[in-house]
């Protein structure tokens, strides 16, 4: 049996998406920037995709810009707006593509405020309000945290920002939430939104960024005038087609999928109650995404349990796949550290992440093997 519980690292592409990408490569090979008919055909297709995607977040089509995915989107917003002397507000548990860019920007005299996190994992709105100054140009906050799944209240954050500054823009890293939790950029007062296709059964290496008009970002990649002049390079048209189709498929069933995955998480947590020395880091309430379940197994190392499970076809993660190497240097997850977990709880952390592909029955198989693994590993003196 194979159980894939690592959907926050990446998802398996839908079969229809695979076909769509192949179809795109065959039929839409013309360069959308070419003047001839073939180019026009591709350009029209791109426009079609832009319309589809814009509707999913209540944006207009010319606010959607195709790119290579989440890391590029995050880099683009930070580097495209922040200059020496400016002020940024963020959280201590953003993705590496935010935190590592900030380290460099800090050297360039950009001032950064890391928001306090309340016990429930949400940002302290009062702290946010008090932190906004006239130099604050950007607030960058992740919608759903990739390691523990806490959901930030974007509407409340967006309102707080707009009430306290006309200048401050709001960037949301929606890589883990897009297609899973509804987003409305207008209601939430979002100026920039980063999305990656492979997190919702689309192809890897493609994504989009929503930029509210009028655009004020300085391009990361210069060259031709593709993507309204803000992202040069011939568009990955077949990838974009695959992303649009995947987006349609997940957004169409967004509520249904949410309920299904919530049942899986619920059952998993219930079964974990019988397992000794366990700490559930992703609670079962509306403030946490049902797609992510982070658990600390005390007395063992997450990585070793992970390798035990892979042997029986169960694929999980010790946190975010993007920073697995990085984390070794700091001795475990910085997200769990931020939440005040003990060293033992941090090093025994495992992230199970679900998708609509998963079934409740898989939980029994996983629990079974978890017990076997824990019995085997915990004999260590």
């Amino acid at each position, binding site marked *: 049996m194979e159980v894939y519980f690592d959907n926050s690292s990446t998802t398996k592409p839908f079969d229809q998406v695979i076909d769509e990408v192949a179809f795109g490569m065959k039929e839409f090979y013309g360069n959308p920037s070419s003047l001839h008919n073939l180019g026009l055909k591709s350009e029209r297709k791109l426009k079609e995709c832009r319309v589809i995607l814009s509707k999913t977040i209540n944006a207009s089509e010319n606010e959607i810009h195709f790119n290579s995915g989440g890391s590029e989107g995050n880099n683009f917003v930070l580097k495209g707006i922040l200059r020496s002397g400016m002020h940024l507000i963020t959280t201590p548990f953003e993705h590496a593509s935010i935190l590592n860019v900030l380290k460099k920007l800090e050297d360039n005299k950009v001032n950064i405020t890391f928001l306090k996190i309340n016990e429930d994992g949400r940002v302290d709105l009062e702290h946010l309000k008090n932190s906004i100054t006239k130099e604050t140009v950007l607030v960058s906050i992740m919608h759903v945290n990739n390691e523990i799944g806490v959901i930030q209240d974007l509407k409340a954050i967006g309102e707080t920002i707009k009430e306290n500054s006309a200048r401050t823009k709001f960037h949301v890293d929606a890589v883990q939430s897009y297609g899973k939790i509804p987003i409305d950029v207008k209601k939430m007062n979002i100026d920039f939104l980063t999305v990656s296709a492979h997190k919702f059964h689309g192809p890897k290496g493609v994504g989009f960024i929503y930029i509210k008009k009028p655009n004020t970002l300085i391009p990361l990649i210069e060259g031709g005038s593709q993507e309204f002049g803000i992202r040069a390079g011939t568009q990955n048209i077949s990838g974009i087609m695959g992303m649009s189709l995947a987006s349609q498929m997940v957004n169409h069933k967004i509520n249904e999928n949410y309920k299904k995955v919530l049942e899986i998480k619920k059952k998993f947590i219930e079964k974990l109650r019988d397992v000794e020395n366990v700490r559930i880091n992703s609670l079962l309430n509306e403030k946490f995404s049902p797609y992510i379940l982070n658990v600390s197994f005390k007395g063992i190392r997450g*990585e*070793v*349990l*992970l*390798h*035990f499970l*892979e*042997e029986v076809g169960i694929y999980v993660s010790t946190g975010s796949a993007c920073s697995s*190497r990085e984390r*070794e240097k700091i001795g475990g997850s910085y997200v769990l550290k931020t939440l005040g977990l003990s060293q033992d709880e941090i090093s025994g952390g495992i992230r199970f992440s679900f998708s609509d592909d998963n079934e409740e029955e898989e939980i029994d198989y996983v629990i079974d093997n978890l017990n076997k*693994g824990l019995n*085997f*590993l915990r*004999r*260590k*003196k």
Partner: protein
Amino acid sequence: MKELILVKYAPEIFLKGLNRSKFERKLRDNIGKKLEGINAEFLHDSGRYFIKTDEVEESIRRISKVFGILEVCLVKQVEIDLNSIEEVALEKVKETNDKTFKIITNRANKNFELNSLEVSRKVGGYVLNNYDGEIKVDVNNPELLINIEIRNNYTYIWSNKDVTKGAAGLPYGMNGSTMLMLSGGIDSPVAGYLMAKRGVEVNCVYYHSHPYTSERAKDKVKDLAKILAEYTEKINLYIVPFTEIQMDIIDKCREDELTIIMRRFMMRIACKLADIYGIDSVSTGESIGQVASQTMDGLIVSDACSDRPAFRPLIAMDKTDIMDIARKIGTFETSILPYEDCCTIFVPKHPKTNPKLDKIKKGEEKLNIEELIEKSIKNTELVTF
């Protein structure tokens, strides 16, 4: 005029007395094996060995890695005729922007009418008279050194710019065989390289502790073996499952004795495999005092269970010197990839640095040593590079 590759053997080979021809034959064989897939022909001219091929660069790259070779030179072959020699020497000067040069002649062919010094002088004079740019002779510290060798059949000419340094050492396979314990760290591949360099055939054993070590860690060890195989003919890598042994030790033995008992098992298994596959000795990358398990007492206690010589070529080397060799042979970048090996996982807080044999033996009494070893060896996987 032809271009040939001159292969100079390491001088140690010429000191081998009666065995010299055996060493030479082996070296030629080894060169032949390294050149597999390349159209190359061996030539011989009064004590010098040459290779004729169209794929010059690739051949030089490969030959320079063969142990027992001092240097590899790309030479021009011309007739034994002063005019031809002068022309090529002038060409050599024109190839560079050097401002000073010297000519060294070696006249093995005593029938040639001029002696070495006379040839150097004549050719040097020709260059000075015919070169347009600014150049002069400097016999003490020349930028460009032109070699002229007059042999029985032809004359060979090359400069210091045409020389690639060889790997030195002795022909691989001339000095018996060893079973190297390869861990994935920086040291053990260097130990293997040094043994191979002295002509010892290298085989490798790796202890794999899934799930404590990942598949990536195993891949890393395979990559290291592959890099070593560039210097040897081929490498046999024996991958031994080690988890059960480790768990048994953890369950039954004292925590501060875990590491030394584990190392004794590694030694026993390496010897056993060596015995089965007819390998003469065992080698490790240990260096005295480097970590808690590599103390004098620790080495004595792990040595005590080996039934054949256990070589430790790095024993008296500093870590920085070992790292320099690792960089030179191309294993460093792979070695520092951050995957656990089985030595770094079960590290007790305070390992014994002065273990005594009788106490450790006592500690091992609870273990069924024979059975554990037999089972691991039965499930050993062999990968060849």
